[in-house]
């Protein structure tokens, strides 16, 4: 029974739980309830991945209406894995949340916070799971709208303007996607992805489809914050509550990357995207520019969250760089980095949340001597930061290895060299934290502080353990990424 309806349960569970959050009395039961829901969602995701690994893609007709008329939920290796990632980050972040939320969000708003969080989770999971192009737009808006709300909960008033700006840009991006989907529908008369893929073959020489492709690409690169369409990201990450930042930094942009892969490779097909439209001519320079500009900006930030936000823009550059090669190794690099970066950035932002909880600031200047004041959290930050640099025995190294291999395979030595140089820029901005935390003395007037509670430490260390463990045991991430890449390039829907 459960096994047959896994795909819909995955969505329904957090969706229905969201309004219940607001109703639960007394409020102290909200978090335990949300916690159970989020871990159950993770369990479902794991079962679904297991099922896909055992018996191939799952197709689920919503309400019994067969595709292409009804909405189809389709789970294959790629999205099963993205779903697992999103559910994992969701569960881990929610486990971490209560102390941090109590600190950063007013008491009476907390149930709404958890409700919005679950809605956001629903939206992100829905984007991944659906096999219907229009449905992607709907779920995209569910997740985006709840994200705007979540960001605006930040204590700083700049959170409001950040949320507003994200709303404007996010809506423009989503509307572009809607236009693209509409134009595709106009030419093919279908919205089912598999159906679209086969019907587009006949009409993809038309101007309409090419315009649709352009609208979709621009809309999606806006949502996934590819340079120079990243301007909404730094403020949103900086002023959102720590928990929200950790969650959206690890998942929202990644899910948009997934949609990009889905549209470009399975619906339009690599031949069309790379052969006819030459999307690589655009992606490659933008990705490289993003890596360099954002890393350079990150080096000069004085706010730790903003520093990491710019680093995210740079890391998205790596993911898109891998994708822009359009080869199996390149795609493997992109997909693997999508997972790996989510783990590392999640861990880093959780560490930042713990720092904020105790020190009440994330300005680098206020973190002098942090290595003495919060040794465990500082060490966690450094470990996750090493992954970002791409030091061996962390997941960052695995990503970088595949990315470089892809560049060299394609014969693009200069690109390989540029990627290496950019890792050194990551070294510089991570080292700014190291030097602040370990080399500056503890200020004399600093009150004594204790480490963040265990409930926050455990989720953070879980992500770090994954970020290191999966850097050694690569068969899970890189193995699946490679299979997904092979299968994306084969063009099968």
């Amino acid at each position, binding site marked *: 029974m459960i096994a047959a309806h896994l795909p819909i349960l995955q969505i329904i569970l957090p969706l229905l739980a969201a309004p219940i959050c607001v109703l639960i009395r007394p409020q102290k039961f909200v978090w335990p309830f949300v916690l159970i829901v989020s871990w159950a969602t993770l369990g479902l995701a794991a079962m679904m991945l297991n099922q896909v690994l055992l018996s191939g893609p799952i197709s689920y007709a919503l309400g019994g209406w067969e595709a292409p008329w009804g909405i189809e939920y389709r789970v294959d290796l790629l999205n099963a894995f993205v779903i697992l990632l999103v559910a994992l980050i969701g569960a881990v972040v929610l486990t971490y949340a209560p102390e941090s939320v109590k600190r950063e969000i007013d008491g009476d708003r907390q149930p709404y916070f958890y409700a919005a969080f679950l809605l956001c989770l629903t939206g992100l999971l829905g984007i991944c799971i659906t096999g219907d192009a229009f449905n992607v737009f709907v779920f995209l808006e569910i997740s985006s709208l709840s994200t705007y709300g979540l960001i605006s909960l930040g204590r700083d008033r700049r959170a409001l303007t950040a949320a507003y700006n994200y709303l404007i840009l996010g809506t423009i991006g989503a509307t572009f996607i809607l236009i693209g989907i509409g134009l595709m529908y106009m030419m093919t008369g279908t919205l089912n992805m598999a159906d679209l893929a086969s019907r587009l073959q006949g009409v993809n020489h038309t101007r309409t489809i090419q315009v649709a492709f352009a609208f979709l690409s621009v809309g999606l690169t806006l949502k996934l914050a590819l340079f120079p369409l990243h301007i909404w990201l730094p403020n949103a990450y900086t002023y959102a509550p720590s928990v929200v930042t950790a969650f959206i930094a690890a998942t929202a942009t990644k899910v948009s990357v997934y949609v990009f892969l889905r549209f470009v490779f399975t619906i339009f097909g690599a031949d069309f995207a790379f052969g006819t439209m030459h999307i690589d001519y655009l992606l490659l320079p933008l990705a490289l520019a993003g890596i360099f500009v954002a890393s350079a900006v990150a080096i000069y930030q004085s706010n730790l969250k903003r520093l990491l936000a710019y680093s995210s823009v740079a890391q998205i550059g790596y993911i898109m760089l891998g994708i822009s090669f359009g080869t199996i190794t390149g795609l493997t690099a992109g997909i693997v980095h999508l997972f790996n970066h989510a783990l590392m950035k999640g861990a880093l932002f959780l560490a930042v949340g713990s720092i904020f909880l105790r020190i009440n600031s994330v300005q680098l200047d206020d973190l002098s001597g942090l290595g003495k004041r919060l040794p465990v959290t500082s060490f966690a930050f450094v470990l996750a930061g*090493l992954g970002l*640099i*791409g*030091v*061996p*025995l962390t997941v960052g190294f*695995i990503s*970088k*290895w595949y990315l*470089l*291999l892809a560049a*060299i*395979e394609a014969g693009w030595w200069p690109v*390989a*060299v540029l990627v*290496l*140089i950019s*890792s*050194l820029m990551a*070294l510089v901005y991570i*080292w700014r934290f190291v*030097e602040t935390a*370990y*080399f500056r003395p503890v200020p004399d007037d600093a009150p004594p502080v204790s480490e963040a509670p265990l409930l926050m430490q455990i989720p953070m260390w879980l992500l770090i353990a994954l970020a290191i463990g999966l850097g*050694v*045991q*690569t*068969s899970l991430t*890189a193995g699946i990424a490679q299979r997904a890449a092979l299968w994306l390039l084969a063009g099968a829907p």
Partner: protein
Amino acid sequence: MSPTTAIIAACLLPLCGAPLIALLGRRENLRDAVTVLIAVATFATVCTLVPAVTAGARPSVHLIEIFPNLALVFQVEPLGMLFALVASGLWIATSIYAFGYMRGHHEENQTRFFFFFAVAISAALGAAFSGNMLTLFFCYEVLTLSTYPLVTHHRSEEAKAAGRIYMGILLSTSIGFLLLAMIATYHIAGTLAFVPGGILTGRASEWIIGVLLLLYAFGTGKAALMPFHRWLPSAMVAPTPVSALLHAVAVVKTGVFTIVKIVVYIFGIDLLAETGAGTYLTYVACITILGGSLIAMTKDNLKARLAYSTISQLSYIVLGAALANNWGIIGASMHIAMHAFGKITLFFCAGAIMVALHKTEISDMKGIGRQMPFTMGAFLIASLSIIGLPPLGGAWSKWYLVLAGLEAEHYIAVGTLLLSSLLNIAYLMPVAVNAFFYPAPEGSHGRQEAPLACVLPLLFTALGSLILFFYPGPLLDLCRQIGR
């Protein structure tokens, strides 16, 4: 103990010992005793591997596969055996020395010091036993990261600046060049295994081989080839035991060991000799040898002078590898051991002088031989070994290196070696000679040796240099087998 268990045990003993050391932090005596015990146990474990390896066995351990056809592999071959013996053996001496020094010098945070020290040794042993380039690279980077807290032990502005240079050069060369070269090799050869005779033969053009060799050589920043040598003198802000073990043995030797290993097992000396790809590397090595010696002469700070001397001596090993013939490889690998014994003694002496007399500048050291006869005696012996005079170990390695230069008909290399020996005399001998031939400084009162824990290890290592001259047999046996 079976060889495979021994490999794992040797790498893990110091690593697992590190948390133990950290736990015992409060009880200094117990902590120090445990450190020595772990060091001895590690050395003993490494020793159990020697008979098998000398007899031609190549025990190996396959761990997890990281990339397709590329796993974490440990395999013991003669060169790694030699390096592991040197590193683990000298760790014992250094541990004992470190207690005397750290306490005599009233250093803070000693537990953190011993903790990272143990991790660093573990990484060095891992590098020694690496069965492919990826494993070696992993250990290389762990070594860099674990020595960073040691180099910046004092947490001063000076230490911070030195740490920047240290991390900056070592990480940027290894990520910028070494990783690139590795991935290119993996792309060309499909593997990164260490295979006698190399894995690149017939797979790449001369031009690519030349570029790769330079990428590897400069990428191995720990070998301190000019112009990437700045980190070594900077790292001297560290406490002296760190300079002694890490910057005379573990870190720098991991660098040159990596280069020799790459030359022998990735390229193969035949390939290098045929294509002449090593030529440019020999010039770089020659420049570094002479440049290092010349700069050493201008330094008045004893540790700085020794640091530049190390830079120069390391390039002997690179030169031996770049000459690409059997004599060169034997000379290079012997020099890893010989220089280790000589240089560690010199650093020990520098530290002992600092502890006993609080002197760091050479110009202040006139006549101290009368206050510290044992220390300065050892200093003299070690200097002679570095210069390469019989009856000291350094003579053998230089002998083979010169032979290699003659065989390769590379007279610039031969000339450099001879000229450099003269320069060695010029910058090392005055220290020892002035110490003995000047009267004791005013206000001194008789013997003022450093604590026994400092003096014993340096006498032991100085004696080691002497013994290695008379009994180079086992060492030579190992060296002869390299690449077979």
